[in-house]
């Protein structure tokens, strides 16, 4: 059976995920502001936002509305509990990639359930756009990770990170793949130009149209933890994880800040532009990368 201290480590991982990512997203707002030649809020502004939201009384549309959001946050926390980070592996031996992906998808589905239960058509449109984008960026990402799993002969994330410490970062073996994975990551984080699903003027923030108060607060927490999981996954799989915590956090922050700088200077795409982009450029590059990889590192016998 899993020991109690593992559960403690896992919960600590989730808490650390939330704290670090919320602070970092405040820094993201500051950087965006500076790029736009203004000051921006303090770096701990998102903490203030979350606590304000959790103190507000809002409306609900029924038990499915509540339940969906609880599933979303539970999925995010559950996923963060499995995430290894620089040698700290909360639940040894069970952190494989497919499990983390599907558990995170459960969180997304919970959010979709809640949005549908609000009864607002704008929410359904927003979720539909979000899921359409999901296909676009998840497909090349998962294909690339499957190639990596096949190469490293393990699907455990900590295992792949550890192997990269010895054999060199994956970015050296599949540079095109890392580029594609970064584009997918940018979409997963919901940054411009890929934040179509929550366009405030077009679909009035999409899935969150009827969320207020504690619902928005919980969603905020779930979003931050999910962002942590996504970026950690990218760093562990493609950038070599980290031998020490400092190295991991440095890479993490570099990826996140690069993504936020790119998001600050681009505009939002329309949903059909997003879909058409994702079905041409990343998939083409992925096919090219898989062919190159197969030629160089193993292939058809």
């Amino acid at each position: 059976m899993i020991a109690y201290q593992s559960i403690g480590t896992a919960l600590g991982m989730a808490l650390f995920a939330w704290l670090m990512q919320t602070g970092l997203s405040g820094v993201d707002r500051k950087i965006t502001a500076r790029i736009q030649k203004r000051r921006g809020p303090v770096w701990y502004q998102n903490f203030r936002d979350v606590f304000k939201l959790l103190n507000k009384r809002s409306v609900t549309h029924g038990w499915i509305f509540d339940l969906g959001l609880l599933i979303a946050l539970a999925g995010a926390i559950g996923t963060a509990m499995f995430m290894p980070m620089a040698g700290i592996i909360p639940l040894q031996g069970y952190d494989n990639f497919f499990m983390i992906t599907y558990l995170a998808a459960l969180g997304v589905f919970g959010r979709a359930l809640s949005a549908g239960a609000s009864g607002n058509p704008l929410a359904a449109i927003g979720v539909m756009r979000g899921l359409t984008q999901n296909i676009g960026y998840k497909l090349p990402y998962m294909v690339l990770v499957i190639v990596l799993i096949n190469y490293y002969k393990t699907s455990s994330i900590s295992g792949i990170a550890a192997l990269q410490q010895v054999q060199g970062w994956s970015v050296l073996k599949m540079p095109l793949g890392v580029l594609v994975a970064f584009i997918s990551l940018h979409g997963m984080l919901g940054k411009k130009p890929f934040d179509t699903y929550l366009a405030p003027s077009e679909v009035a923030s999409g899935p969150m149209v009827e969320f207020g108060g504690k619902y928005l607060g919980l969603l905020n927490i779930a979003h931050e933890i999910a962002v942590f999981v996504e970026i950690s996954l990218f760093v562990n799989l493609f950038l070599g994880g980290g031998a020490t915590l400092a190295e991991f956090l440095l890479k993490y922050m570099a990826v996140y800040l690069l993504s936020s700088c790119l998001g600050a200077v681009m505009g939002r795409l329309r949903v059909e532009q997003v879909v058409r982009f994702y079905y041409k450029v990343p998939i083409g590059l992925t096919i090219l990368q898989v062919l190159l990889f197969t030629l160089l590192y193993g292939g058809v016998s």
Partner: protein
Amino acid sequence: MPKKQLPSRFYPVKHEMQTVEAPAEKISPQQRAETWEKIAQYFRANSLWMLNYCTGCCAIELPLVMTSRFDMERLGMMPMATPRQADILLVTGYASLKTLRRLIYTYEQMGTPKYVVAFGPCAVNGGIYHDAYAVLNRLDLYLPVDLYIAGCMPKPEAVMSGFMKLIELIESGKATGWKDYEQRYEWYKKNQLEAVGEVFIHDEFHE
């Protein structure tokens, strides 16, 4: 010459606010609730989300306040898409019949605590539209206003200083318009129905 006394409807009414006496020595539940309330007020004041819904001409000043020169995000304020998500309802123009119906409907959709900030003299006494046939002159009778910002229209500097005053009011616990709305709900409803007839229009062929 004696100063002409304007009719009373031009002067906003000051409402009496109730203060609670805190007991002296040990931390009673009331004191604990007060401390929680102070902490909550700190968070509410420094993370105000305004509803991106502006009613009239004063709205033109808001993009200036939001963007790089006057940057309201450094106060923690951000525009939000729907009333469910927002804390502040900005009444940035005159309250006509149609607008007032929708303002009241939107205000009631917001979650508490919520604040109303009125721009310009139109909410005080009708401003330059005071003698129009469809304009209602005193917003205060229909929605509890927490702060007025002077100017027709107020410059961005005035808006920023107004927001900072609002933050001060919230932190000190003085911005209690939403509590007043709940307590004197019948009075507000009576005024609303007298002025507009019905807030939620009964069918889609009327406005």
